């Protein structure tokens, strides 16, 4: 069973409510995202945390080319694009069973 992947998604973010929703989706996404900041800078990496229960809500990400974690206030985020490969997509158990059966059939065929 594969959920539809968000890979390639580039949502419009017209208001804070939408931003919160998109951040939640990015937090659940198992791939890199591109976060566009208010100064036009783009950060590419894995968004691993978000917290809205504090005075200044923030997200945290490991940048692809960086070493440590970055902390970015929600207020500075203008856009989030789901640019990296979704590592959770396309790995279904059913697909694995199919490939296993195919491998078995190939190895037991007369020419194998």
């Amino acid at each position, binding site marked *: 069973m594969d959920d539809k992947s968000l890979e390639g998604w580039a949502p419009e973010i017209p208001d804070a409510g939408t931003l919160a929703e998109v951040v939640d989706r990015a937090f659940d996404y198992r791939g890199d995202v591109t976060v566009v900041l208010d100064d036009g800078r783009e950060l590419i*990496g894995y968004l691993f*945390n978000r917290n809205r*229960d504090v005075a200044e809500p923030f997200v945290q990400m490991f940048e692809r080319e960086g070493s440590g974690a970055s902390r970015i206030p929600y207020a500075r985020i203008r856009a989030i694009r789901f640019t990296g490969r979704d590592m959770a997509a396309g790995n279904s158990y*059913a697909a694995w069973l199919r490939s296993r059966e195919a491998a078995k059939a190939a190895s037991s065929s007369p020419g194998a």
Partner: protein
Amino acid sequence: MSVPLSQMWTVATYVLGQKLRGRTRYPLVLMLEPLFRCNLACAGCGKVQYPGHVLRKHLTVEQCLAAVEECGAPMVSIPGGEPLMYPEIGRLVKALVARRKYVYLCTNAILLKEKLEAGLFTPSKYLSFSVHMDGLREEHDEAVCRDGVFDQAVEGIREALRRGFRVTTNTTLFDNASPISMQMFFDEMMDLGVEGMMLSPGYSYSKAPDQEHFLRRQKTNELFSKMLANPKKRWKFNQSPLFLQFLMGKQEFECTPWGNPTYNLFGWQRPCYLLQEGYAATFKELMETTRWDEYGRKSGNDKCQDCMVHCGYEPTAVDYTFSSWKGFRQSVAATLTGRL
């Protein structure tokens, strides 16, 4: 049951100490994940699906030890990822043993023989290799999505036992588990000479590829009741007998999500080992700011309704043992008689 007396004593005095101090929420086992990288990609596991640059990262030994000190739990379980792929695993384990923490190194054992031959570890009552074994050869290789892994694990277990290490097994059961096959598996593990076995039903990770084969509550009760109705005396389980009774439907427990707190690259995971709803920077923040009443079966949270996994319910079983004479009596009776 097969938990050594010294370990039982440590846990008992720790839990009673927490109760005397009036702490209602305390950690029992720290789940320390130094890395997410693994040499397997099992269909039931949602732990390893990250971009490459995240998988290449790992905690430092100093970060791990700081988390251990901060948490204070008497037992440390090192899952992952595959901890034998952690470049500092020897140093980490040595430091934990020096701190007299009971360490369960949870491994698929593919690299176990190689690491033992390299002299990375020294036998100790504080160190147990907890080898992932999801059943007999065919079931296990199917669960880990690779043929030959069962045999590699058995080879690793034999080598560890030969060298005098404590070895336990940990088994996750899915809805395709057969009680008879599992009983044969218990016999085989005991024949191998492992100290004890740990069992748990699987949890449906939202990101795990195999969503169709996780056990629902009633099915869990039926499976465990059939499997453990007449347990052989020689079967040893390295876990609370009351937790096994809970899996059989003989105990009614509520989840203790803070019982096995998880620390990894991202911080302290909220609320538990299985759900990833955010991260706290410190253990104190985790304990004080997580809305614990939103988790567990009573909360009505959909994600918790079918969960019966060890990391939430074994701490409940242990707490129950030391909270009432009834719990203590039931636990002692099951331990002494082997009856569940």
